[in-house]
């Protein structure tokens, strides 16, 4: 056993239908000499306490076994720990795994063994980290950026603050998690007669997204804002948002070098 590795299993993996997949993973990891400490997330167990326990036991690499939701359970505190993040996606959703170039299932063990380590920026909403994006839907909040200018949606709309991910219509990834910037994506509401709404959507297909890059800012509104950062729900009148450069070290796959910031047409997960 390699004590510098700690594998954190999501609680859904106790379901018998994942038994074979997990057994195969463990066999493959043992073959690669990557077996390590094992911890299991459960409903009434703090993910933070569990991970910190393994870090105190000497773990240098925390490997999450599960799906993207497993990542979201630890991402809000993990960047502050002196560890490298590994990820073995076993079940859907695996969108973040795709962005990181990690294939689902057994091949992820080989990616883990290859140890191609990248350092990524993390977004911060209030005191909570997020890897991918913070989203506020149907909001009229104003976004003040870098103490210089303000973006607003006079008729309301959706607002996303991206650190990683997002794909344009041309197949280009929009947010690079190594540029030291966050990307604000604003999509205003459209008032259209009901009769033309579907026809226009079919015929135009136009891109009505606003894209602005920034380092820090404040989202504020007179009415309560509700949203989510990496699927964690947040609510309040005002949030400070910023990017923390070079905060998280992640083991990634080489295969997504093109898929992340190039042409994603060959990537079925990016529609």
């Amino acid at each position: 056993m390699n004590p510098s590795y700690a594998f954190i299993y999501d609680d859904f993996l106790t379901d018998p239908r994942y038994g074979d997949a997990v057994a195969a993973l463990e066999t493959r990891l043992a073959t690669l000499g990557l077996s390590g400490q094992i911890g299991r997330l459960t409903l009434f167990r703090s993910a933070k306490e569990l991970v910190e326990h393994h870090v105190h036991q000497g773990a240098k690499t925390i490997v999450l076994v599960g799906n993207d939701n497993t990542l979201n359970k630890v991402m809000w505190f993990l960047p502050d720990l002196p560890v490298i993040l590994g990820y073995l996606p076993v079940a859907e959703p695996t969108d973040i795994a795709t962005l990181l170039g990690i294939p689902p299932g057994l091949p992820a063990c080989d990616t883990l063994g290859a140890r191609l380590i990248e350092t990524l920026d993390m977004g911060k909403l209030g005191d909570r980290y997020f890897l991918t994006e913070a989203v506020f839907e149907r909001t009229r909040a104003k976004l003040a950026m870098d103490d210089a200018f303000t973006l607003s949606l006079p008729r309301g709309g959706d607002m996303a603050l991206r650190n990683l991910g997002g794909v344009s219509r041309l197949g280009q990834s929009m947010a690079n998690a190594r540029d030291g910037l966050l990307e604000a994506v604003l999509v205003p509401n459209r008032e259209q007669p009901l009769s033309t709404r579907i026809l226009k959507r079919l015929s135009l297909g136009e891109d009505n997204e606003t894209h602005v890059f920034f380092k820090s800012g404040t989202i504020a509104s007179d009415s309560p804002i509700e949203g989510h950062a990496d699927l964690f729900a947040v609510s309040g009148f005002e949030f400070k948002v910023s990017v923390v450069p070079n905060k998280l070290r992640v083991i990634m796959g080489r295969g997504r070098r093109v898929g992340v910031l190039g042409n994603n047409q060959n990537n079925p997960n990016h529609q």
Partner: protein
Amino acid sequence: MPFFGAPAADNGQQPQPSVAPSAPSIFHTSSKASPATVIAKGVRLEGQFKSQGDVLIEGEVQGTIQTDGLLTVGADAFVKATVTAADAVVAGKVEGNVLAKRRLEVKSTARVNGDIVCETIIVEAGAALKGNLTSGSKTDAKPEPKTEAPSNDPQKTTTPPADAAKADAANKT
């Protein structure tokens, strides 16, 4: 412990990586230009906006815009701002001075109410311009507001340097 800044290969307890740590990053780091900024229709930007990349405006902007790249003001856009760009294409409504360091293209749908300074200008038939136009030279200076009419106040009149020198010589003789 400065763990995050440490090189990936420094961790002695980890298995030997089968991929060289110096492998190129899977993320593209753009060194040539910043990504394009888009202000779409239905969005309002207020304040001082600076960018090093291209900027496309189809919404509403108030304040100042400054970019080292190409600024495009769409046909439905309304810009009430002082605009500075390397190159600019204006098809919408601009209220404010426009400084294009190289080339300015004014489309037929454009309505510009302000002074324009640029090196090269192309104006399509139908465009409406109201203000001073300076073009054909290097554009280092910002566009100035309209010059005031010469004053009759003798204390405010200034003497050109050449005339002043002549006057000094006459006084000495």
